[in-house]
């Protein structure tokens, strides 16, 4: 699938990215090759450029969204993107070396360092604020604290271990990752999972979306000191986790999607539990959305706070609620699309305001859509086996895009002739969302940062790999 290209074609693709004719889906490497995935009108394409002397023309030089990916590429594979404007290490934190934050000049400015250990129960990362009084003039992020070399662990692993690792790239999106990995692996191995498995995968993915959106909705309001929303949403989130436990034997549905199908079937009692859940969440979310809409003090915090312009969202190819709250009408379930969503009816909410409020509303609308999808999934669940034995090992390559609650997760892998993973890359949606948070907080007050940050809810672990 990956097409080896000469430098001229690689550079032509960079020009397309810079001109806004293509969107960057991913950029990853191997010791002697750099790969780039592009989203073009109507198609996805992977370009691979051989790097015999460990060098290739930098994408980040002309297209800023690639810069962090290329810094990671330098760290992990010692490939040199020629012309890369920022060559500070990203995922590697060399021992004892102080990180060179970008200099800030101006009068009356002060810096606020935050992290890596944060005040809440969240993941580690460092934020360096430069503020003028209450107003944030600039934010610079430093990530990589949770770097676990997951992709290196995948090299040489069999598909079962690969799937378990993929399911732990970002725990809150374990279903989406396992699904993306399984689809890429199935494509490489030449196997199609049975229809019942595909439908059950979608059921799990929608339950995961529901749980996370509910959690975010409550947590965002909590960061605006509206605690009652967190209490109610926390309860609903717990109901989803308990239903998942009852149906699939794991509260987060980890390791339930495996290459070839799914590991757990849904029985009649499970289906009834999901129906009861739909009923409760459907009833409650209506009331909670109304409460959100009618509480002026809460709206005062979220409306016009942390704005991401549609132009930035488009340029960075931001997925999920970050993109869709800023006018980017993209959802991997619809395009490139994958079964069973091609036989289900759902709409993709899009707003243009790009503020915290818009990101909240996208989540509320998506909760409603997920409820409708789960209803369709239960109603049309095909009978039959839930998994297929994998065919004899063979070499192959596969790529998949799966819509997690946070946005599109990309998985690409190549199998060797023994059916083991030669190289696997998974790209979290956060790669293209984290940089936008730096832009969103500009000119907002420091106290609104938690609110903005929560409305993005980027994954540290998914990004740090």
């Amino acid at each position, binding site marked *: 699938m990956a097409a080896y290209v000469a430098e001229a074609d690689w550079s032509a693709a960079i020009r397309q990215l810079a001109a806004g004719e293509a969107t960057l889906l991913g950029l990853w490497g191997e010791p002697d090759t750099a790969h780039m995935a592009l989203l073009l009108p109507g198609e996805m394409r992977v370009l691979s450029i051989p790097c015999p002397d460990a060098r290739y023309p930098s994408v980040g030089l002309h297209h800023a969204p690639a810069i962090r990916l290329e810094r990671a590429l330098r760290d992990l594979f010692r490939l040199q993107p020629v012309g890369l404007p920022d060559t500070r290490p990203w995922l590697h934190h060399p021992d004892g070396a102080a990180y060179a934050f970008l200099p800030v000049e101006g009068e009356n400015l002060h810096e606020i360092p935050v992290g890596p250990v944060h005040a*809440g*129960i969240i993941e580690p990362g460092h934020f360096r604020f430069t503020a003028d009084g209450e107003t944030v003039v600039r934010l610079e992020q430093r990530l990589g*604290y*949770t770097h676990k070399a*997951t992709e290196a662990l995948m090299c040489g692993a069999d598909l079962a271990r690969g799937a378990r690792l993929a399911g732990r790239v970002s*725990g809150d999106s374990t279903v989406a990752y396992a699904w993306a990995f399984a689809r890429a692996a199935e494509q490489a191995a030449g196997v199609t999972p049975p229809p019942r498995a595909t439908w059950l995968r979608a059921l799990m993915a929608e339950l995961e979306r529901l749980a996370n959106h509910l959690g975010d909705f409550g947590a965002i309001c909590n960061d605006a000191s509206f605690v009652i929303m967190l209490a109610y949403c926390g309860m609903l989130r717990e109901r989803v986790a308990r239903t998942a436990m009852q149906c699939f034997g794991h509260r987060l549905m980890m390791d339930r999607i495996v290459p070839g199908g799914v590991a757990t079937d849904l029985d009649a009692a499970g289906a009834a539990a999901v129906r009861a859940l739909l009923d409760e969440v459907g009833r409650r979310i209506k009331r909670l959305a109304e409460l959100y809409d009618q509480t002026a003090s809460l709206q005062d915090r979220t409306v016009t706070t942390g704005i991401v312009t549609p132009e930035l969202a488009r340029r960075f190819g931001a997925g999920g609620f970050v993109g869709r709250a800023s006018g980017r009408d993209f959802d991997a379930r619809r395009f490139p699309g994958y079964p069973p969503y091609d036989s289900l009816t759902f709409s993709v909410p899009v707003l243009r305001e790009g503020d915290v409020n818009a990101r909240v509303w996208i989540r509320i609308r998506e909760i409603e859509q997920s409820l409708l999808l789960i209803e369709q999934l239960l109603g049309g669940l095909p009978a039959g086996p839930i998994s297929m034995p994998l065919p004899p090992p063979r070499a192959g390559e596969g790529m998949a895009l799966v819509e997690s609650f946070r946005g599109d997760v990309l998985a690409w892998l190549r199998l060797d002739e023994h059916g083991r993973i030669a190289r696997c890359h998974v790209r979290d949606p956060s790669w293209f969302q984290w940089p936008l948070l730096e832009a969103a907080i500009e000119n907002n007050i420091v106290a609104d940062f938690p609110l903005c940050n929560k409305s993005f809810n980027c994954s540290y*672990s998914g990004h740090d790999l």
Partner: protein
Amino acid sequence: MRKTLWESLTHRPVTDPPPAPDDAAVAELGEAVARAARRRLGRSLSIREVDAGSCNACELEINALNNSFHDLERFGLHFVASPRHADVLLVTGPVTNNMRAALLRTYDATPAPKWVVAVGDCAVDGGLFADSFACVGAVERVIPVDLRIRGCPPTPTQLLQGLLALLERQVW
């Protein structure tokens, strides 16, 4: 708003009955939690959570301890924002090389007496990431650990059982 508040007042709480403390955890704690600590701290413990490189699944379940079903605070256990306010460090993740220094500094910033609970398979023995060149592995390779709660991730109930064991040991 009024409807929602009224409903909260008139409905019975959804909170689960407390689970029994985990016997294995009680045994593991041994002499670690001493009588002196019980006298000084009573039955109330402040917990600081430190993510030392987890995949964030453990954080989801630790966060769930605060929801109305599990209601951690009814046991006198609560999460604090700074290690300087903490009695217990709840550490998750296969301690990445990049988090090692931060974990050590957090431990040093926590006043004694203090206990460390390793939460999740990664924190207990490195889990799936045990062989990673980017990870140190088990938390006990960096700081002393008093209690281990296994699971990938441990459920809120398992977490509660472990933490209650910590309180139980303080009773005598």
